[in-house]
């Protein structure tokens, strides 16, 4: 766990300079063992001890598939039926800390698994200290060797939006897409069919970005914003209460806020600026795209996205455990375009509309909503 000391944290405590080199790259148990030895030798000040203890707590605080709390998180998210086999779990536990060390991330989260026809992609994300900064995405086919993916760009999104269907599972696979392009040649304008090759890696990047922007969520109070700008993990977050956990408004999208500025002043007056700085799920379009359930006899609240089926968010109320995982085919839920929403119900009752035109109509209307984040960036 060779993470460097977060500057804001150390500033608050008077500017500790960093960990002794001996502690780099060791697990928490090894570290505490070293510490006791150091303490006995009188080389370890209580202040450093405090730093370490809070750092350990911090890394466990947001159990979003953190490497340390991976097992518990996987167990809690298993209600959806898809998870990881034991060998994958073991490989993850071994390889994620190595990734953290090599790429010098603050935290490495296991994002999920995209099912392909031939093979599955296992996705992990590395976070820096500012929680809302763009994350680095890595993928692997065997949970052991991880490759970094390029960051998502607008043109990638546009390019890959034409590709439909399931992932192959082979990162070098290329989709061919023919398009008509207008080509000017010497005054003549004619259309020519151009075959565009789209790599599956590109598609992977854009899909992950879409899913993150659309449905990655976090409970209210888990992050807080300092006046200086960076977003930190809230160490004193004790979890939502049971009544709060059942409301959609207690969960935020884990991305830059989009709808926040559209709120009226009256609404904003009730918000706490240090906690309420992200969009809540309440006003998501389409409505009803989240399913909230209590599992394990009310001891766990599980949110499942209907827009991207396969995204499961879990939170144990009154505890710090929370996290989300995506296991699915990376296909947007078509069911949501049909009759289940309030709007859909109304339209569904009118006869004479065939199914195909009906779904097309809604699809056209809802397309821009799939990229809420990218529209405003």
């Amino acid at each position, binding site marked *: 766990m060779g993470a460097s000391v977060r500057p804001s944290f150390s500033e608050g405590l008077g500017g500790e300079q960093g960990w002794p080199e001996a502690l780099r790259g060791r697990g928490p148990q090894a570290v505490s063992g070293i510490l006791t030895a150091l303490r006995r030798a009188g080389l370890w000040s209580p202040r450093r001890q405090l730093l370490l203890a809070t750092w350990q707590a911090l890394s466990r605080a947001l159990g979003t598939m953190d490497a340390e709390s991976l097992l518990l998180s996987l167990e809690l998210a298993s209600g959806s039926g898809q998870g990881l086999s034991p060998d994958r779990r073991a490989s993850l536990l071994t390889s994620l800390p190595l990734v953290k060390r090599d790429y010098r991330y603050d935290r490495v989260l296991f994002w999920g698994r995209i099912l392909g026809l031939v093979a599955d992609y296992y996705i992990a994300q590395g976070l820096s200290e500012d929680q809302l900064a763009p994350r680095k995405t890595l993928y692997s086919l065997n949970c052991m060797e991880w490759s970094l993916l390029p960051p998502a760009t607008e043109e990638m999104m546009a390019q890959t939006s034409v*590709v439909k269907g399931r992932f192959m599972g082979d990162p070098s696979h290329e*989709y061919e897409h023919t398009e008509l392009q207008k080509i000017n040649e010497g005054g003549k304008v004619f259309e020519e069919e151009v075959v565009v090759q789209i790599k599956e890696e590109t598609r992977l990047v854009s899909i992950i970005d879409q899913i993150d922007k659309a449905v990655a969520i976090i409970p209210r109070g888990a992050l807080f914003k300092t006046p200086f700008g960076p977003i930190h993990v809230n160490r004193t977050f004790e979890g939502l209460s049971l009544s709060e956990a059942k409301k959609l408004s207690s969960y935020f999208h884990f991305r830059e806020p989009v709808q926040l500025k559209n709120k009226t002043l009256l609404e904003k007056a009730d918000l706490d600026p240090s906690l309420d700085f992200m969009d809540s799920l309440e006003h998501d379009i389409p409505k009803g795209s989240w399913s909230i359930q209590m599992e394990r*006899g009310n001891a766990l609240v599980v949110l499942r996205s209907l827009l991207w089926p396969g995204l499961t968010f879990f939170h144990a109320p009154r505890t710090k455990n929370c996290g989300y995982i995506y296991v699915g085919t990376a296909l947007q839920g078509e069911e949501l375009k049909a009759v289940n929403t309030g709007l859909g119900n109304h339209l569904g009752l009118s006869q004479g*509309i065939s199914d195909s035109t009906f779904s097309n109509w809604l699809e056209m209307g809802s397309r821009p909503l799939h990229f809420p984040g990218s529209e405003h960036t």
Partner: protein
Amino acid sequence: MGDPPTDPEPPSQPPSSRRSSQVSQRRGLELSRPQPAFPEEAEQIPLDPSILQSNRGILASQANLQGWSLGASPTQQENLTMFQAEEAQLGGVEYPSPNMGFPSELQPQLYLEEGGIQATQNAGLMLQQLRRGQSNLFQQLESAYLETQPDLLGQFNMYQRDDLQFSQHEPYLRDEPTLQFSPSEPGFTPFTLEVPEREPLELAVQNAKAYLLQTSVSCSLSLYEHLANLLTKILDQRPEDPLSILESLNRTTQREWCHPKLDTLRDDPEMQPTYEMADRQKALFLRSGGGEGQQEMEEEVAETAVPNVMETAFYLEQAGVGLSSDESFRIFLALKQLVEQQPIHTCRFWGKILGLSRSYLVAEVSFREGEEEEGEEEAEEMMEGGEGMDAPDEEEGEEDEEKDTDIIPKPMWKPPPVIPREESRSGTNKYLYFVCTEPGRPWTRLPHVTPVQIVQARKIKKFFTGFLDAPVVSYPPFPGNEANYLRAQIARISAATHISPLGFYQFGEEEGDEEEEGGAGRDSYEENPDFEGIPVLELVDSTANWVHHAQHILPQGRCTWVNPLQKIEEEEELGEEEEKADEGMEGVEQEVGPPLLTPLSEDAGSLRTSTLAGATSTVPRTSTHPCRPPFSRSTPTAPRSWR
């Protein structure tokens, strides 16, 4: 807490009587003070009061009334805080008025040296008094203070009394033993000369303390009081590394203050559903324990219908699919409960269907021979009742026609004949399905599925809400509620996806049946006793090694084809309809589906099925035929599609 005296009169008169009585008490006590009786008690009391008192002594306060309220509120708390309240009281009592002023420097020293013990002794007295009874605590404190610290009486100006006879006493003369025994003797202030010099510092200190004593907006707690509570708590509990857990202690103390746990009789209302669920699930566990007396019935154990859910879950987990292990165990117990309740021959955990508000756990069972549920008979009666309704309508229509010539023409449309549902234990209704939302809740039986439900279920796509009686609002309209829709989906899923390795099941050796059923195929299979497993390599390489062992559902909605028009001819007795029936007969063909035990390789869209070897094996991943670009979602049309 004692009643806050409302009159600004010197309470010296009302409590004087008490005081006098207590004076004698005090005298007696004070005489015995040098004895170690009190120090014992003093030792029990932590050093908090002394420190706190010294702190308070350092900081003078102008907010006497505040100090009073400070003292008043905590006394409603528990003992510990009451004890603190005492100190608040004491502290409040200590606060000098600004005009009094006294050198603050000397005071703490005196407090620490000797006053410490005295303070603790005072505290001990307070405690004693508390334990004896809480009658007008304020007055007791007041009197005790008047007794033990006559020099502090000058600070005792809760009511801004100026005519108090003790108003001139100074605190730092307490080390003089003579003063202790002569409380009413007016003291003298040898250090008054130094007071004017210390005023600016005093003022600053008083300001600081006043600021700290401001009550917070959210709850009636001031920082000062909170810090006092926090330090008291730390000193009481003496945790290992207080600095590292300072913040959480802070939060806890604040929360305790604002939300004291007063109610020990009622449960936390928020946790009520959790406890209920836990109770129900406890019943699950206890059932298994109740079978201890039945150890003689070990013979039946081998024949029990309860499936080995844990074993299945283990294998599924290797594939990365499944619920967590304790959830699987609870499902196992719930299935056991089901087997005990119903006359079940075979039972299997079919799976879990996720819903919006709740999810469904589905169990696939078959009853013992001859054990038909009454529910089936009821359902049949209802169906017959429905059919009987149609006939009278037609008859009425005919009568109208004869009477009136000028009538709105009757619609010629007749609803298509209702295809009868399959018998129990055959086709789509081969098994019975029970559902429950969570292990521990009662199992509900799902009705049999009818062909029209399957046909409609193919056309719609709806989420399940989790409530079996919820209506299914869709277009085209679905005949039934969510229970029917669930059952239809279960039937479709079972028919399409239940597969087994080639050779695991075989047909029974009854060749005569094949001819009789007219090409509809066999509908029963049995386990092959001579099955030797197929090596993993072969299983992964091609899909031909896997076969469906559930019957295919025809487009009609049934597994075995039924000519709907034959039924019409039997039921219709009116001559007019015969012609129409003849017209309709032309378009009906027998529907044929793939027979049982057809390999997967003949499935429609089989190019897209994938087979993956387990991660632990060294089998290289197979590659299916690459899909032709553009990668479209349209399924190539095929004569057979397992829907």
